[in-house]
């Protein structure tokens, strides 16, 4: 929160204090989930309205606020597709097509929903290979359950073929599940319904301002069209879900109900024009970063007019012989920035999503940092520093390193810790430990506080 956290696919936008404050009001905090409906009129109103807003935004008919995360939303969505097919006596439809660029939760959710995953290829521009899709859909026509697709794609591109893609799936009797992780590029400009999806989840902790809490909470409600609405999940203790609804996907009827207030506030305080502006500026900010980085870095994939959506992938593979993507990520810490998403969806890259909440000054600082890092890479290429001993390889530089009496590096302390002037103006933060050995930790898995004696030796 001290500076931009530009995590691609994660939408780290402002979590406004006004959105957060009511969550601790006792009239929201101290309500039991199974309290009689006569006592929960406030919640009922929020829930009803929020469902309506999310339907309006997605272009869909119905909504379930039950899933507690994006991945739970995927699962819930697939389960209602499953129920749909079952209800039509097509229970055998169990093939889920998933593009190779999909997030890992997509196939995992499909497997959990009892589906067989068939991977669809992407073309050299990063888009779904429509021919391959058509072939696979045709091949599995009998058993086609659905397509899972992220839109704009995890590559940060509005694929122009999306409508055609959805049409193909429908043509073969499948449904289209849209992963809403990138919804922040859609709100008010297009919608899951328009592109042809049948159901989607929304990560309220991305697009709708719920903070990430260091790995939760989240909320992953799903919205769907009329064909799927009857199957939305029910709950043993509450009136919710579709007429032929599935059993619950969460313990509580409306998931993590109290944080719905955050998204509700977000929509109420921005209104239709505001949420649309949020999208427009998210796209502006991303394209501004893209334009500033181009030349120094290759941006992987973009739309037909050379624009990215709300995020972009910076390819670091061209520097593979010199540094890895992780080196850049860790070096960014020295520059006072949290790294972008690393090696997703493409290994050896970073994916940057600035969101609309960052001002130009902040974007510029971030670009300055990445451009400075590019120069540091060039210094390795030029032989100024070796591959094994350079600011990237040794990053992050801790206070302990910087303040040590012995300085063993071929570059200066200043270069290590304060490579750009802004860092002296309050933007510096320090990693408290050096680069962590991932393999060691996985080999020696210790996951409770080790007994105190162990520390005696360390």
């Amino acid at each position, binding site marked *: 929160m001290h500076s931009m*956290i530009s995590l691609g696919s994660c939408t780290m936008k402002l979590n406004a204090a006004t959105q957060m404050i009511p969550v601790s009001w006792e009239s929201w905090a101290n309500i039991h989930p199974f309290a009689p409906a006569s006592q929960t009129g406030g919640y009922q109103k929020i829930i009803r309205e929020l469902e309506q807003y999310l339907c309006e935004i997605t272009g869909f008919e119905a909504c379930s606020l039950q899933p507690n995360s994006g*991945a739970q939303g995927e699962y819930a969505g697939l389960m209602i597709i499953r129920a749909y097919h079952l209800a039509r006596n097509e229970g055998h439809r169990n093939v889920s097509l998933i593009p190779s660029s999909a997030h890992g939760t997509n196939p995992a959710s499909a497997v959990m929903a009892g589906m067989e995953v068939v991977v669809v290829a992407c073309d050299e521009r990063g888009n779904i290979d429509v021919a391959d899709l058509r072939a696979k859909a045709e091949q599995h026509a009998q058993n086609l359950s659905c397509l899972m697709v992220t839109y704009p794609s995890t590559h940060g591109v509005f694929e122009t073929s999306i409508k055609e893609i959805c049409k193909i799936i429908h043509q073969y009797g499948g449904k289209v599940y849209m992963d809403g992780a990138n919804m922040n590029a859609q709100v008010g400009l297009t919608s899951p319904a328009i592109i042809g999806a049948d159901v989607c989840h929304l990560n309220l902790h991305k697009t709708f301002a719920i903070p990430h809490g260091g790995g939760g909470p989240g909320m992953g409600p799903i919205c769907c069209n009329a064909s799927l609405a009857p199957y939305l999940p029910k709950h043993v203790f509450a009136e919710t879900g579709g007429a032929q609804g599935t059993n619950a996907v969460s313990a509580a009827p409306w998931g993590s109900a109290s944080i719905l207030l955050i998204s509700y506030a977000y929509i109420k305080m921005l209104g239709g024009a505001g949420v649309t502006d949020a999208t427009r500026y998210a796209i502006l900010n991303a394209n501004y970063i893209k334009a500033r980085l181009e030349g120094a870095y290759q941006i992987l994939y973009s739309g037909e007019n050379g624009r990215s959506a709300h995020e972009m992938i910076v390819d670091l593979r061209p520097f593979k012989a010199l540094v890895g993507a992780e080196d850049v990520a860790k070096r960014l810490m020295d520059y006072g920035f949290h790294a972008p998403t690393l090696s997703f969806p493409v290994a050896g890259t970073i994916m940057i999503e600035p969101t609309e909440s960052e001002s130009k000054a902040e974007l510029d600082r971030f670009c300055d940092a990445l451009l400075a890092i590019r120069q540091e890479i060039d210094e390795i290429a030029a032989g100024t520093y070796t591959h094994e001993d350079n600011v990237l390889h040794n990053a992050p530089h801790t206070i302990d390193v910087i303040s040590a009496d012995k300085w063993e590096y071929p570059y200066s302390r200043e270069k290590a810790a304060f490579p750009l002037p802004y860092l002296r103006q309050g933007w510096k933060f320090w990693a408290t430990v050096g680069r962590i050995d991932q393999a060691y930790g996985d080999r020696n898995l210790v996951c409770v506080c080790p007994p105190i004696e162990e520390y005696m030796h360390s």
Partner: protein
Amino acid sequence: MSHFPHPDRFVNRHIGPNKHDLQEMLNFLNVKSLDELIYQTVPDTIRLDKPLNLPPAQSEYEYLAELKATAQLNRLVRSYIGMGYHGTITPSVILRNVFQNPGWYTQYTPYQAEIAQGRLESLLNFQTMVSDLTGLPIANASLLDEGTAAAEAMHMFFAEKNKRAKPGEEANEFFVADTVLPQTLDVLRTRALPQNLQLVTGDWREYVFSEKTFGVLLQYPDMHGAVEDYRAFVEKAKAHEVYVCVAADILSLALLKPPGEWGADVAVGNTQRFGVPMGFGGPHAAYFATTEDFKRQIPGRIIGVSVDRHGNRALRMALQTREQHIRREKATSNICTAQALLANIAAMYAVYHGPAGIRGIASRAHEMAKALAAALENAGRKIAAKHFFDTVRVEMPAGELAALRQKAEDAGINFFYDQTGVQINVDETVTEHDLAEIAGLFGAKSVAPVATSAVPAPLQRDTEYLTHPVFNSYHTESDMMRYIKRLENGICRSCTP
């Protein structure tokens, strides 16, 4: 409503670039307007052709004023419903410095461990707390809720049990005691369906293990508050090579012999009552603890201890590659986002209270429940269970129940009701005054302490927990606040105090 608009509009607070920035950025991008950029970006075939039909934007002040009115539509009553959700006291120092502090709540998943040591330490504390209380050596850093945690256990058992089974020949029966929380059973039904797992529910005393059984789920204390001795049952399960999952109330484990000590392979549950408000269902952190055997199958995120390049101890999310590249066709779990913030609050609650405090809170609930049960019994009520922790169930005919419910709700009191009885859960927030009020509703008089425990001797806990210094060092508010701040600032010395 717009003769006199307030100049402060939220949209200008939310969106970063101001007008001046916008112009510079558009120039840089060589476009005339933001619309032009959007037209270049979003394919025209999918463009929305009308503005969103959402209510007009409110200012922050207007929003809060309206929400205050909406909040009035919720009726705050005394809740003794229990059933997995409990009144709890969030220590103010944690409320203010964690729950209401953007330094804790805005952060993302600690993939970049070098700048997240503090939050990682707190999650490690969570894992240790869960491990200590359940008596199981390995715990993860939270799951979404108790219901899905139980489902994760079911699938983990299924996969493990049938590792070498041929397709079609898997052991696929999962027994769920009929005293498991109904919402958990509901989730299990959903989750069992796709993989064709057969859920069998019934009285655990009568369950007959079969070839097909791969796992069982028990509730401890059960949904009616009864503390059952499952030990013989679990031994039988072991004998049949059946895995056992126990859904356990985290607070009860301060007094009860923990599942890990009587053979459970997995314990799951909600940590909500460790300082996290009920919030009409969430968010709260579920826990998942297991044995060494399942170390690498455990779902969700796990914080592990590693070393940095200088050889110093350092924390990180372990087995991360497992998450980022969930093995697609073989996946059994899709957990990414879980409940980190709430796990941190629950862990901080344990740090703040320490073993004596936690035991004290549990004991008080137990003492009050016993006193209430005795008072109701004295008043001629039929108490369902002899052994219980903090929940008293009274068996009553349906007619009386309806009358009681009416009277109670009028008095602003919620109990849990079913066809044949009413249940009263005594949580941390209950006062002596509350007890008297409850007793009154049942026509009982005074509520007085009862000496003997309502936990049978063999199920009384005799092992320590929360012995690590971190749970024994920060019991004043100053120390606690500073500890929270040090962690917020990313500092951790591998959980040494």
